[in-house]
């Protein structure tokens, strides 16, 4: 023991051999009793609106990530003039809600794995539909490979129940190379199911039974987005499809009120919209009266990038996406939701990824420049280290990245309340 203590004093924190390094505890670490979260800013537990003006310290911007062991990464300043409430950029959307008694007003919620299973979108849908009418869960893919909390799907092919993976061939814009297609015809969800010869044997060869899990979501109608070569009919919860061609999505929806679509893109950075055919997007956005597009991305950039330059490039890429969507959907407002707090282990301690606050700040600046709304999940949660609190209270998983269902519910509710609060003001 004494020998080890002596060694700690003699050895430096780490020794590097080429790109590998050997680490060794420092004496301070040996005598520290607290195992977790030793660094980071004060955790702010007040669930204040995320968009409040940044504190003086925060406005000062330039942060140096404290780390006993690592060469400090210097993160550049991001001056953000965000004293104005970014909800002013949602004015057109707010105004459009008045039309909801006569026609559909559509909200698309794109995001990464944090919004899978309709965990977060559901809260916004419920809140908006309670005020402005409308029912139905909105869009879902033909083959729902990721189950949803709000709608349960069963596929039958030629009379036999099949698993989603056994169904039509899927192409996914955010998937791996082998899942992609070159023509960009992915449809509005960024994924498409292509029915081929084996599925045209009968008149009702493919049957999708889509059961809403909550009676409040009871729909009144179906909308099927598919090539004209696809024939379909519906009865209650069930859609019957036959023919050869692409199916871009099924939607359970009323014909008036607000429809909020959950469009999760697993593992996606959000830099994929430009790969989707613009004509296809534009026609959907126009016909379906899409008035708000929510983009919730950024989290997937964090774990593998430790360099501010890369983060800048990614945010630049996201900016291109925002501009692209603006041209495809000139009628729609855009809300960007930044990444949540995310934890990693450094020298055995759970800390916030140094790039989370930086990216949050860059995204906020990008949003301000592009005149779109911005919601900072990270700051709403309480800033650096808040994910650990969420874990302790069962709101986040042990991976330090994903919310649990109750955590997602809480976050979804906060976003919904923030949007609705904007209407009142």
């Amino acid at each position, binding site marked *: 023991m004494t020998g080890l203590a002596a060694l700690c004093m003699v050895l430096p924190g780490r020794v590097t051999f080429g790109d590998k390094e050997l*680490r060794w505890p420092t004496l301070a670490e040996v005598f*520290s009793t607290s195992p977790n979260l030793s660094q980071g800013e004060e955790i702010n537990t007040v669930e204040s609106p995320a968009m409040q003006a940044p504190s003086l310290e925060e406005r000062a911007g330039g942060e140096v990530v404290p780390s006993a062991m690592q060469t400090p990464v210097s993160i550049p300043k991001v001056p953000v003039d965000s004293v104005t409430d970014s909800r002013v950029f949602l004015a057109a959307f707010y105004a459009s809600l008045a039309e909801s008694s006569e026609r559909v007003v559509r909200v698309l919620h794109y995001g990464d794995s944090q919004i899978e299973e309709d965990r977060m979108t559901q809260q916004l849908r419920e809140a908006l539909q309670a005020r402005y009418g409308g029912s139905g869960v909105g869009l879902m893919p033909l083959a729902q*490979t990721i189950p949803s909390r709000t709608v349960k799907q069963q596929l039958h092919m030629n009379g036999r*129940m099949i698993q989603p993976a056994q169904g039509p061939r899927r192409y996914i814009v955010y998937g791996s190379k082998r*899942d992609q297609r070159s023509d960009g015809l992915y449809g509005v969800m960024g994924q498409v199911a292509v029915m081929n010869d084996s599925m045209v044997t009968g008149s009702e060869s493919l049957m999708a039974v889509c059961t809403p899990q909550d009676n409040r979501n009871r729909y009144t109608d179906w909308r099927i987005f598919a090539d004209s070569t696809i024939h379909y009919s519906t009865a209650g919860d069930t859609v019957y499809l036959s023919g050869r061609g692409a199916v871009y999505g099924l939607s359970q929806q009323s014909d008036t009120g607000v429809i909020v679509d959950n469009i999760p893109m697993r593992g996606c950075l959000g830099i994929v919209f430009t790969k989707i055919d613009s004509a296809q997007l534009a026609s959907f956005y126009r016909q379906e009266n899409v008035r708000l597009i929510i983009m919730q991305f950024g989290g997937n950039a964090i774990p*593998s990038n430790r360099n501010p330059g890369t983060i800048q490039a990614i945010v630049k890429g996201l900016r291109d996406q925002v501009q692209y969507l603006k041209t495809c959907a000139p009628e729609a407002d855009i809300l960007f939701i930044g990444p949540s707090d995310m934890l990693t282990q*450094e020298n055995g301690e759970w800390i916030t990824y140094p790039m989370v606050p930086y990216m949050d700040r860059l995204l906020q600046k990008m949003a301000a420049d592009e005149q779109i709304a911005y919601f900072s999940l990270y700051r709403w949660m309480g800033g650096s280290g808040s994910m650990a609190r969420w874990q302790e209270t069962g709101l986040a998983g*042990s991976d330090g990245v994903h919310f*649990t269902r109750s955590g997602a519910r809480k976050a979804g509710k906060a976003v919904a309340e923030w949007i609705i609060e904007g209407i009142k003001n």
Partner: protein
Amino acid sequence: MHHIFAFDANSPLLFTQFYFWAFFALVYALFALIVESPLRSKSKVKSRLHLRNVYLLFVSWFFYYKTSGLFLLILAFVTLSDWIIAGRIHKYQTANPKSQIPKALLALSVIIDLGLLAYFKYAYFFTNMVNDLFGTGFRVFDIFAYIGNGFSQAGRFSVDTIVLPVGISFYIFQVISYTADVYRRRIEPVKNILDFGFYVSFFPQLVAGPIVRAEEFIPQLYKPFRLSRRLFGIAVFWILNGLAKKIIMSDYLAVNLIDRVFDNPLLFSGFENLFALFAYSLQVYADFSGYTDIAIGVAMLMGFYLPQNFDSPYKSQNPQEFWRRWHMSLGRWLKTYLYIPLGGNRSIGFGTYFWWTVIAFVSAALTGWWWQILVPFAVFMAVVVIVNRQMVHGKSSHSKLLYSNLNSFITQVLGGLWHGASWNFIIWGGINGLGMIVNKIWRETGWHVRFAAMTVLTFGLMALDYAYNLPVWRLFAVWAAIVWTGTAIRYIYWLVTADKIINQKLAIINRKLSTAWAVLQTFTFITFTRLFFRSSSNLDPASANEVAWTTAKNMVNQIGGAWNNAIIPDFLWEYRWVVAMFVAGMVIHWVPADWKRRYRLAFAAMPLWLMVIAVCAAIIVIYQFVTADMQPFIYFQF
């Protein structure tokens, strides 16, 4: 100073922290002064022993205070209550061997001990169960917080939550074993309460076992300290071995893969889920056995022997053997104080019928299938009663099989409940119980029947898979087909040789392959029971049950439904470190016990300077895993 001595719920004393080792170094230095101080006369031996025991008792209490704060009072209370009751039992027994008072006292002590355990560990569970069954809206009430606040609902302690005191499941079982052993006259009661307190709260094993039985440990209290050079080496080896298991095989695998998959099975493909499940099997073992290895090593340095707790359990060839090698101190405890009192393999009595009825009712309440469970259960019990009357008690092998199955199933289910207060642990215990029964019957069965039964089962499951095309049937059908293949090969071998040895070499190969096959089958079975083993203790039981159930369901759905061979190579490459650690862990686990003993002894026999270098090297390696960069998230399935 305050930081060092005060209780802080966020920084308990754990074996994996430097702080613990600094603590232990100080404790050990003073301990050495006590036990090595020169003696002026022989009569001082006793008082030195006494000083040592008292010293370690206070150190242990400090350790528990650092870990659990004021729950130290609970520990002190059960120590006092069992010491007094056991003393009374002994007194009445010596005064009048036929007296019924000792029995009543034993019951009193068990009620107090289990009552405390039930209150702290199962209050939420029982409240929740009552609310579910009767639609009531009871909530738990922390009576100890109420008292702590000076009989007030408001104050320093919250009355709405009951916090589980660390290690309560372990030390409650220890005090029960003591009182029961005194009652059964296996040991004399301990005269000095401080000595007894030391037995109950000895810090290396206080929070996670092994559960030391009174008759094994109490005699050691009166033996002077002795630590040979070789034992010192072995103790150091156990500590390092435990740290490596805990940090490399458990924490590293958990953080970089297992937790992610169990948190969100749907984010991962079938193969990743299956891999994570097997890795979880290794993790649970490495975590728990690593911790007890360290406990054994630390105790050994102070001259105390704690019983072995794990004997490479994944080498087992059947579930029954697994339970003899896994958490052995708990297994022995349950056998001595539950299974044998129920009748063991010799008889069944009131206890057996009582617990079976409870289990049947609880399963019916849990599933909502009242008559579907209770009617077959009533028929089954009627058959058991009739058969039991016909049998000559405990003589025939059939009656032994029946009795042992009935009683061991109860032991498994209650053992499951001991691990955690939620349904998933009961289900887990039940599956293990069933596995043992099926395996025992299987081993009593001839090859013709085995092959026929396996064939029927496999085709039945395949038909179900075809008819319903659900992932769960796919999973079972594939599993059954694999078992069927093994059974068919061995059946053919048996038909050809008809148990006569035709060729010595072939017979040896057959035996080795059969062993490997049995080990793999047992490991797979145990791994699948782990679907129900993961606890989520920071949630209330209602959501803990829901989360546990959803996780198990989603994992089965992914394994049986979202299988995609194309992504397996990508996964193996991207997660190569995690995969390598898992494979290394399993290979080391399966190294023959004899080799392990040899390298342990070789380590112990090293010259001191070499041992110091080896220890430093091992710690550097372990530290690299503590500080390793996290495996980034990579998705393969979209």
